[in-house]
């Protein structure tokens, strides 16, 4: 159904729909779509099925909220970027409308906030002053993970970022990403999103950012189907070879080829990437191609299935708003300690620098993870949680 909904042409939609099974529990499907934040994406396809009045009313209500949110966040993005630009600060919109514009119905992509990245991180404090003068409020004055959260004058959430993605515990990778996003002026372009002009990344950098964002969530609290849908609509259109090459070079330099392969493979297998033949990618044998050559080599179907299960699990955590145990680099006690240290620094960026406070902070972080995972996993034991984390870690080791 998602594959059908992400097709641009009506002919492709009909073709995909005909291949779908008729034996569907529609009510469960609606709830799952809501849980995964993709209900509005499959709205039209679901409405084409025989749904009862109660489900229809629920879908209409949810869809109306998504459409309203989309426009309110669009206005915030436009006004905030305009305000910063008027004061000599260049910025670009991350995810949100920059990806929504690629959907057949842009309003169908659910938004919960606006993310804005400053072109020059040194503008952060100046931008902060400008926003506060304009009525934006940052209640906790935090600056964790290189971003700060504000409430706009109409009480919506806007995040200002000085880095495109939060740092990992891999210093070399952090350095590459930081340098890659250091001078992006030439890789920002103005695009019309339903008549509103917004600065967005050019395709190569946009793809790289989407991938980094997914990896960050995969190794952290997980991510749901919505980000996979972003990947499908991004590649289900023509992307210039030069931009694809730039993206593949970034992927290679970071060692993310396997993650790219499993992600793209899953999107082809389950979500209709490349299904209408009008996009940038095609599949042949074990390889996925773009018009300039090989895009990636697919991993085994078992690994793709394992990855898809992780996505669904990640969606549950996102829905419940809880953190879960992150994927680790190894199974040993040192790997757990290293990850706790990294998570502690991310959670307590200031206090984490004080060595004497670290043992207390470790205990807080450990307690939070166990409590949150226990809630989501229905009272699972601490040992069970660590075991699940171990399974995720094994998948992570296959991919990185």
């Amino acid at each position: 159904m998602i594959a059908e909904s992400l097709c641009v042409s009506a002919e492709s939609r009909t073709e995909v729909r005909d291949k779908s099974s008729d034996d569907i529990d529609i009510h469960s499907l609606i709830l799952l779509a809501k849980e995964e934040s993709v209900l509005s994406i499959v709205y039209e396809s679901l409405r084409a099925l025989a749904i009862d009045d109660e489900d229809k009313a629920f879908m209409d209500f949810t869809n109306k909220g998504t459409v309203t949110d989309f426009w309110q966040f669009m206005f915030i993005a436009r006004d905030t970027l305009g305000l910063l630009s008027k004061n000599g600060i260049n910025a670009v919109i991350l995810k949100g409308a920059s990806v929504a514009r690629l959907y057949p119905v842009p309003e169908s992509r659910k938004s919960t906030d606006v993310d804005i990245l400053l072109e020059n991180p040194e503008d952060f404090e100046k931008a902060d002053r400008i926003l506060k003068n304009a009525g934006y409020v940052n209640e906790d004055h935090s600056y964790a993970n290189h971003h700060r959260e504000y409430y706009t004058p109409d009480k919506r959430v806007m995040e200002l970022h000085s880095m495109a993605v939060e740092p990992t515990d891999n210093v070399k990778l952090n350095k590459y990403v930081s340098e890659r996003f250091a001078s992006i002026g030439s890789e920002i372009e103005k695009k019309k999103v339903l008549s509103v002009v917004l600065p967005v990344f050019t395709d190569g950098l946009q793809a790289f950012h989407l991938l980094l964002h997914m990896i960050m969530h995969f190794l952290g609290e997980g991510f749901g189907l919505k980000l996979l849908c972003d990947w499908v609509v991004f590649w289900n259109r023509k992307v210039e070879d030069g931009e694809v090459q730039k993206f593949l070079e970034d992927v290679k330099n970071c060692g993310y080829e396997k993650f790219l392969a499993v992600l793209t493979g899953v999107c082809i297998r389950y979500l209709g990437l490349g299904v209408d033949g009008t996009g940038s990618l095609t599949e042949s044998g074990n390889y996925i191609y773009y018009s300039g050559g090989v895009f990636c080599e697919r991993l085994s179907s078992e690994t793709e299935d394992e990855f898809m299960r992780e996505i669904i699990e990640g969606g549950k955590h996102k829905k419940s708003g809880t953190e879960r145990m992150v994927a680790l680099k190894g199974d040993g006690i040192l790997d757990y300690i290293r990850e706790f240290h990294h998570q502690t620094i991310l959670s307590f960026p200031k206090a984490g620098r004080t060595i004497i406070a670290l043992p207390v902070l470790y205990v807080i972080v450990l307690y939070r993870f166990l409590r949150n995972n226990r809630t989501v996993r229905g009272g699972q034991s601490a040992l069970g949680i660590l075991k699940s984390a171990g399974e995720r870690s094994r998948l992570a080791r296959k991919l990185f």
Partner: protein
Amino acid sequence: MSEPKYQTQPEFILREIGDEAVLVPVGAVGELENSIINFNETYSFIWKQFEEPHTISEAIENARREYEAPEGVIEEQVKGAVDELIKRGVLKAV
């Protein structure tokens, strides 16, 4: 004197998603800025009539062809909706 023609303004776009229709001001439009206006069927119909320049009489005539209603009802509804859209700056004489 010939009847004036009206047209929708580019500062607004109509978005129809499922059964919902919303008018979104995407330009500088004063009091309606940053608001999202729910449109019913009448208003959506009127909007579409004036995407190209038309007179009110032409819109009424087209509405009569599209809908059935007792004498005077269509005329009243179309005029009412057009007046409101002119007042809000959504329609302007061309």
